[in-house]
């Protein structure tokens, strides 16, 4: 029973993600893989994000003073097992951004990005092993409904609600339970396609993500854990009537979470995420985010 509970909780951990634009930081991991013994998993998340600074290309932090940059996001995730080893998932959200700098205030709301995913369990746990993890391979795609860096028309860029670019990704996730701990490690590569605006083109660029974390089964109902993610984006290049090139950016997200099993089918989760706590950050936003999520699971 405890093993099942841990797997259930881990499925929530694996689905944990943040809808955020690449320009403004945010864990853009796309994996939302069912790990528990469920046929379907449906989640609703509500998050509040506060951007409070940015980092330079030398890693120095500039903190905002009396500047408001808030994002409220409600998102919906659904994952479904197709066969024993194949599964699919989608995610979509609505975001409201509220930014105020000096006398300029902008409020924008709308859909974020549509994420679609296909995953295959290539390393199933068919027999007990002390060390061998379960392994998943996944393909993901991102279809934007908001603006991106190229197409944003707002002075404070409040119309960039998600990643904003068409992209595809491939990644792998490993999960291993050890006693009361459940550990995970994932890697992901994302390729973003060209984005056009008038006569200028933002050329395709790549993004790399690594994350690892662990959760601890405190009681039959409570599970606590952390997740650390490294995000790296290669330089972006614009060609056309203007030519410019950004530097690469990187940041580390640190998440602390607690999950509560309300009923055997439903979970309530609380996540605190901070991009300023760990590791060297370059050319990235500094932000904190609090998320509450409710997940309903339909067992096999």
């Amino acid at each position, binding site marked *: 029973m405890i093993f099942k509970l841990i797997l259930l909780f881990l499925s929530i951990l694996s689905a944990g993600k943040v809808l955020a634009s690449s320009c403004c930081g945010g864990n853009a991991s796309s994996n939302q893989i069912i790990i528990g013994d469920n046929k379907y998993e449906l989640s609703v998340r509500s998050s509040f994000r506060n951007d409070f600074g940015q980092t330079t290309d030398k890693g120095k932090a*500039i903190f905002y003073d009396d500047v408001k940059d808030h994002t409220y996001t409600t998102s919906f995730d659904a994952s479904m097992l197709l066969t024993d080893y194949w599964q699919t998932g989608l995610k979509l959200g609505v975001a409201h951004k509220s930014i105020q700098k000096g006398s300029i205030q902008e409020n924008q709301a709308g859909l974020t990005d549509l994420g679609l995913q296909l995953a295959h369990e290539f390393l199933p746990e068919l027999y007990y092993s002390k060390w061998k993890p379960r392994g998943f391979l996944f393909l993901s795609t991102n279809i934007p409904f908001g603006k991106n860096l190229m197409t944003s028309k707002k002075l404070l860029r409040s119309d960039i609600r998600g990643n904003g670019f068409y992209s595809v990704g491939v990644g792998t996730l490993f999960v291993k339970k050890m006693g009361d701990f459940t550990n995970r490690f994932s890697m992901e590569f994302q390729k973003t396609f060209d984005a056009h605006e008038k006569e200028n083109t933002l050329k395709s660029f790549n993004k790399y993500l*690594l994350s690892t974390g662990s959760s601890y089964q405190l009681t039959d109902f409570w599970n606590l854990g952390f997740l650390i993610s490294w995000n790296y984006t290669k330089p972006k290049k614009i060609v056309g009537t203007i030519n410019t090139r950004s530097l690469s950016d990187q940041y580390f997200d640190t998440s602390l979470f607690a999950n509560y099993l309300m009923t055997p089918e439903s979970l309530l989760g609380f996540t605190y995420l901070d*991009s300023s706590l760990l590791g060297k950050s370059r050319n990235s936003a500094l932000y904190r985010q609090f998320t509450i999520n409710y997940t309903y699971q339909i067992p096999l």
Partner: protein
Amino acid sequence: MRFLLLTLLLFLFSACGKPPLLNKQDSIKHSSHYQSVRVNDYSADLYWNEAPKAYSYLSAQLEFRVNNILSSLPPESEVYLWMPSMGHGGPDIRLEEISQGIYKLDEIYFIMEGDWQIIIKLPQTSTTLNFNYDI
């Protein structure tokens, strides 16, 4: 447990370097005294360390973007003070690029009260970005 330790060690190595909370850029802050200008593909944001006023040395932070991407000012660009009603400028502004597209402006000195502009002139593109102030 070994798996956990290995993954944690991997991240500790890869995460080396001061975290942002402990690595603050000196003398730069984003304040509420803010203005933004956009002309075609070019935009500039100016954050004053305090409300702009006459007869006092002031500092500010300038962010210059091309299509929303922080970019260095093109060669031969100029950043200067101008008083349109009087037809004259002011003392030179000291400009230091602290990160690509992010500049620290020092020694901004308005020599009298009245209408002032901070002008960013991009000669290669025939573009001028103006910040207007009533000091």
